[in-house]
């Protein structure tokens, strides 16, 4: 199991970053996709925005974007109002159980 998955199991959302290129390396990797240098790992901001969503049965699934780069799919908590594209949201929980699980809540 890699660093990304291990941290997800602890409800921590981390990503690799290249200190030389000063950029996040997404999807996470041990090497920078630009310069192939070693990366450091840091937590990603849990504040993001809604890119797109749909619904299956009573579950909303969506794409959320973090730090203007990382886009991931996860479950969006159902609220009383229809979600709006571009709306601010928060990553409230993440986990790894063989798949990466992400749960978001609108702000």
């Amino acid at each position, binding site marked *: 199991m890699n660093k990304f998955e291990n941290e997800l199991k602890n409800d921590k959302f981390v990503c690799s970053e290249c200190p030389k290129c000063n950029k996040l390396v997404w*999807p996470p990797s041990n090497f920078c996709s630009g310069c192939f240098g070693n990366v450091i790992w840091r937590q990603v901001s849990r504040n993001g925005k809604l890119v*797109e969503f*749909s*619904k299956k049965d009573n579950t909303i*699934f969506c794409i959320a974007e973090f730090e203007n780069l990382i886009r991931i799919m*996860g479950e969006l908590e159902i609220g009383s109002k229809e979600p709006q594209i571009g709306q601010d949201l928060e990553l409230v929980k993440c986990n790894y159980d063989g798949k*990466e699980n992400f749960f978001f809540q609108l702000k």
Partner: protein
Amino acid sequence: MRRVAIGGFGLTKFNKDNISIESLMLSSVKSLFDNNSNLVQKDIDAVLTSTNDNSKYLANIVSEFAGISPKISHTVESLCNSGANSVVSAFSYISSGLADVVLVVGAEKFDNPGLVLECDISRGQYKHPVYWSSMFTRSHMRKYGTTREDLAIVSAKNHRNALANPYAYFNKAYSVDEIMQSKNITEDVRVLDCSFPCNGSAAVLLASEEIIKKFTDCPVWITGIGQKTISAGFTKNDDLTSMKSTQYAANDAYAMSKKEPKDVDVAEVHDAFSICEVMEIEDLHFTQKGHGSQFVKNMYETQDKKINPRGGLIGTGHPLGATGIAQIVEISQQLQSKAEKRQVEGAKVGLVQNMSAAATSSTVLIFES
């Protein structure tokens, strides 16, 4: 660079029988030899197999059972566009002079567990293709006003076209209303808006200009090739209403063939879901962005078979490794005026668009009679 043409093809009916991947591949190779009385095993320099199956050494196993001792043999895998990519490899071997005649065979079993891209972490817990297609659908609806009826028309057209395809898995026409009323897989995708995995096998024979006349009087020339990979992760599609990889691949293919979208008489496009055909018609520049649905509607109302005459993936079934090759077989038949009830009259220029994993990768080929 030497010119390369399709000189023969073989197909077997798509189904869900219990059969090995090796036997599936051999079935369309047999069909290809049955269709080409001038072809003998020693003509073939290279054998390429296209599949996502985990069986090993398939190109060599198929060669042995077909009595071929090729110089070059290997598998090509790229999920859903494995088929078109394997034909690009075959083209390269011939155009470079490494081979004169290449046999390409693609196949997939309906129950192959390797059909979902588990390693795309950007999809989180939503790995199944129906989730990315829901995102594409919702975005296209929001931006361009595409409706559920527009999507159902894609499926109705392609199921109707498949009625004239003796190799199709499906053999049933559906009304637009039946498709709209079919089961919701998600809020945005109905079950009849989806293509389905099935067994399938398709084979093509490619040869250089010097040799092709031995196999056919009507060679189908590959005159344009474009292939582009944007990423391996779905969410790197910045614009969920367009297939960027298809746009790039199409531009390269049009430039190489010196053809324009208006020159294309018939096309097979990768309708993994109804929304895909709408987006592809736009991204191949057959019409402007946002007009894909109207383009499909016109074809449906006028019985025009220009796009997906064999029924596409929705009507024919989607055996991943065979799909791109089956698309090429259809365009070859069209340009040889051998497509019978599916024939687009006077077709001289054809196009195949085969894409993979939420359009993260696309291949576009242009053919001329």
